[in-house]
């Protein structure tokens, strides 16, 4: 059961010989956006809003992963909340332990453990006292989980709808596990109330600004890395597997590894997004990881354009910005709008905003030729 995709982008278009100014247009836009994000935005935007922008960008990082796995690989990853959460909890555990270490009254364990009668730090928590371990775990643990799970299901050719539903079930099970292992995870409250990051107050405008810069830098890095992946030979192979898995198998490739790698990369991106999200928002809790939040991550990518990394970034920023704007003033209306957005995007613009932009660009590029044709026919 493979998903048929309306007008997919050409599989790794051969590098067209374009005159150098237009060849440099893409990188120029990238550098310009980066310069605005790093230079202009922190200077003009007030700290509270800046924090919100950083939050949107965390979801943009997750979104780029979804664009890779779903847009390029045809795997609808409906459980990204799991990997987002794994990354987030890894970072949150470090921040919690930093608070515990600086608090002589804590007795060496976080308060929710003390309430459950635990007076010694569990083995699972101990490595996370080192920031390097926590940061590495935020990337590697989601990657490892995705690699094992992906290998298991792709090897058996579980795909399409089956894969999507398994992912969704994974998200449901993960949230239930988090809530019920309260003595280990803080339960419904999640991990929060982090006073400091590396000794600096997490809530001072200065730290906020640095966190923002870090988020922008990581997002740019992920964008460049994924762009290379998409344009590489592997990227072409991934698209080929999406469009004709059996044909690729007949050509002698093993689609299992092609798909597992893309799934793993997308999980790692989600983990990174989750870890940064904790730094930005100062909380990670099950309520932001379940089925609905996972679907919202996908919706953002669908709106931005699942085939385009830039589209995923724009979609994530727009959808999350809309969410903060609308859900504050009228929550019910926002839910209707969300539902309507799903329908409108799938029915009228399956390639999202990026698709609309491409169509418009194509139209613009050919306008001269169209005029010529019209002139000659008259």
């Amino acid at each position, binding site marked *: 059961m493979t998903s048929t995709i309306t007008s997919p982008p050409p599989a790794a278009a051969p590098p067209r010989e374009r005159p150098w100014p237009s060849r440099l247009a893409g990188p120029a836009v990238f550098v310009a956006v980066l310069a605005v994000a790093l230079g202009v935005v922190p200077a003009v935007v007030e700290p509270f809003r800046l924090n919100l922008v950083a939050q949107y960008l965390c979801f943009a990082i997750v979104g780029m992963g979804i664009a890779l796995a779903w847009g390029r690989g045809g795997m609808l990853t409906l459980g990204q909340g799991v990997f987002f959460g794994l990354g987030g909890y890894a970072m949150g555990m470090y921040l919690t332990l930093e608070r515990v270490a600086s608090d002589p009254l804590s007795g060496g364990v976080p308060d929710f453990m003390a309430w459950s009668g635990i007076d010694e730090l569990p083995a699972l928590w101990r490595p996370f006292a080192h920031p390097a371990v926590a940061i590495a775990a935020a990337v590697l643990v989601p990657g490892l989980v995705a690699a094992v799970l992906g290998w298991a299901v792709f090897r058996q050719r579980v795909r399409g709808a*089956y894969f999507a539903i398994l992912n969704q079930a994974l998200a449901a099970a993960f949230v239930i596990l988090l809530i019920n292992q309260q003595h280990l995870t803080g339960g419904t409250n999640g991990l929060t109330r982090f006073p400091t990051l590396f000794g600096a107050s997490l809530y001072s405008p200065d730290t906020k600004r640095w966190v923002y810069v870090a988020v922008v830098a990581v997002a740019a890095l992920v964008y460049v890395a994924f762009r290379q992946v998409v344009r590489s030979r592997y990227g072409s192979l991934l698209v080929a597997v999406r469009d004709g898995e059996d044909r690729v198998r007949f050509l002698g490739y093993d689609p299992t590894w092609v798909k597992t790698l893309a799934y793993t990369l997308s999980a790692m991106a989600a983990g990174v997004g989750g870890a940064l999200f904790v730094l930005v928002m100062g909380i990670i809790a099950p309520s932001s990881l379940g089925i609905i939040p996972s679907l919202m991550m996908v919706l953002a990518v669908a709106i931005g354009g699942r085939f385009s990394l830039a589209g995923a970034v724009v979609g994530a920023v727009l959808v999350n910005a809309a969410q903060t704007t609308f859900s504050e003033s009228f929550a019910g209306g926002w839910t209707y709008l969300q539902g309507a957005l799903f*329908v409108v995007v799938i029915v009228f613009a399956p390639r999202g905003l990026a698709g609309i932009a491409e169509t418009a660009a194509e139209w613009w590029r050919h306008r001269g030729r169209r005029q010529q044709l019209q002139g000659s026919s008259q």
Partner: protein
Amino acid sequence: MNQLLAQLPVGLSIGAVLLLAALGLNFTFGQMGVINMAHGEFIMVGAYTAFVMQAWVGLPASYSLLVALPVAFLVTGLLGLALEAGLIRRFYGRPLDTLLLTFGIGLVLQQLARDVFGAPNVSVPAPAWLAGGATVAGMQLPHARMFILALAAVCVAAIAYYLNRSRSGRRMRAVIHNRDLAAVSGIATRRVDATTFFLGSGLAGIAGVALTLIGPTGPTTGTNYIVDAFLVVVVGGLGQLRGTVLAALALGLLNALVEPWSGASLAKVIVFAAIIVFLQLRPQGMFTVRTRALT
């Protein structure tokens, strides 16, 4: 051993609930390949139909449930028919798109329920003849759970009869097996599609009414069951009635057996792991239609 036996009715009744929720999916997902995420909201609509019968229409609790069953079947069936005719028919063969599409519909229905009935759960009193229970051989058998089990059995029998004996059911099977051949044999495949969707959605309404007996009725009633119901269809094998029945009962029993030993939260995770392992052994589910397709 005694404890295992005591968990048996619990497992069967969990299985029956799963089965009721999954039976409709067996039509829409299993047979037509449409991932109808709004199915959960159809279940919710069914549950609210039972509420409306009591609170708005004013039927006494003693028989309002029995009236609600056919009414809910009609209401959700028509809802499904409208969804199919308006949107889904353009998306056959694109299951992932139908998933996102119907999720959007589900969000809207959920919010609609919140606006009409309010966000808190409403109460649907069960009829007096379903209160209490019997004790057989040391096993607790609450009447409400037994009613659900019986209802599930009746639904399965009716569906089996419909698919195997009625003309309309046979046409449906023909379309599923080979759409083109069915079409050239003079079957109106479009009409069959609509019928299939009507039946699948209608079954969600019946499941919803039954759920009012054992759980809270609120805007998110259906969401709690939808993922498990989809897993049942996946494990059972697409479009296989006996697979759906077996998988629902197996998952229900597994849940009931693991739960006292591990706690409810781990049980979910263990069941999920069991499903992954099972799909390693039988990626196409318990039963499959034999075809010459590659997968």
